[in-house]
């Protein structure tokens, strides 16, 4: 068998290992079963609609307040230890990555657990995901409300949610809320653009956002 020069062989090996490492690190997650990163389809085109909710400062907000900006809408709850912080972290990282274009986006967190998620709760929770200077990405808007108001918002976004008991602690039953985990991108007219499935990584979301957002004025 022909022997390759040693340097060439080592270089090929190093490049292969580097490439494998770069691909691995891109996702920055140990084991990915990856769902579709972004999807738009006709059945989802009805996503979106009016809502009237209360933000983390106690102010009443409607969907119309956000016209003129893109909305990134995610339904979650603060008691959620895994999927919700993960999704907010991914959003934060993606918005960081798109630089000045992030100024055209409002990231919105709508609670599917209005019983526990009061405006104050949302305020301290979301403040932790907000940018620290010199970052200029936008702050999160947290929305909660009455059971009926939340149900109406969820229905508009075709979001399923349901509480289930996870255990007992100190005599009180603890519950988790199963919920649709997509992140919805809505355009400045409030129309559905695309949704990002759970499991999307920041680089994927950032790439898609760059495509959807025209350069900042």
């Amino acid at each position, binding site marked *: 068998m022909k*022997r*390759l020069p*040693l340097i060439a*062989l*080592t270089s090929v*090996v*190093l490049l292969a*290992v*580097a490439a*494998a*490492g770069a691909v*691995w*690190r891109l*996702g*920055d*997650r*140990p*084991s990915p079963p990856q*769902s579709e990163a972004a999807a738009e389809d006709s059945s989802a085109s009805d996503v979106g609609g009016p809502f009237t909710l209360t933000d983390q400062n106690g102010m009443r907000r409607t969907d119309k307040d956000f016209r003129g900006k893109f909305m990134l809408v995610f339904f*979650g709850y*603060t*008691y*959620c*230890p*895994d*999927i*919700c*912080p*993960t999704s*907010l*972290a*991914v959003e*934060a*990282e993606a918005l*960081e990555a798109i630089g000045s274009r992030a100024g055209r986006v409002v990231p919105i967190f709508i609670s599917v657990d209005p019983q526990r998620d009061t405006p*104050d*709760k949302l*305020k*301290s*929770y*979301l*403040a*932790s*995901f907000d940018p620290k200077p010199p970052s200029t990405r936008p702050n999160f808007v947290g929305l909660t409300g009455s059971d009926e108001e939340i149900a109406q918002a969820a229905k508009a976004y075709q979001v*399923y949610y349901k509480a289930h008991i*996870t*255990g007992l*602690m100190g005599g009180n039953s*603890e519950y*988790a809320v*199963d*919920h*649709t*985990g*997509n992140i919805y991108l809505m355009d400045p007219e409030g129309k559905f653009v695309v949704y990002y*499935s*759970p*499991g999307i*990584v*920041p680089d994927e979301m950032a790439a898609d956002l760059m495509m959807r957002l025209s350069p900042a004025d």
Partner: protein
Amino acid sequence: MTFPSRGACVSFLATAWAMAMFGSISAYAAAECSETICAEQGWARATPGGAQAAAIYFAIVNQGDAADAIVKASTTAAASAMLHRSTTAQSVAQMDMVANVPLPAHGRVTFGPLGYHVMLTGLKAPLKEGAVFPFTLDLASGRHVNFDIHVLGMTATGPGAISRAPGR
């Protein structure tokens, strides 16, 4: 079985050297595991303000010939630690408590976002970025696995930052 040629030996050494150079790859290999079962890359995000629950992630390697299972988790950092598994079938995010997590022989199980995690409730104090705290897994075989959990930033999406944060 033929004896490896010198070229093969050198390329193997080159690969090993390259892997050692790329910390993030070697960090995933159980290089330091002298026990049959080792846990490593333990991480959690700093808890958002007011959060009551936190998720703990790590990798666990079973180098033995016998299957085992995690049956319990505990830490002095929280009153309660439960084994959980998140699922995202049809885009619905759901998490359920599980009684145990199987550890196949010669296998590696990763606890990570949107998958297995240990859910802590009753945190003694919010988890702060840079902190390190001890964690214990009890196994079906009766073994106990002790290791550290590194608290990373709020927007961490994987354990990679552990190797980038020396001395924290």
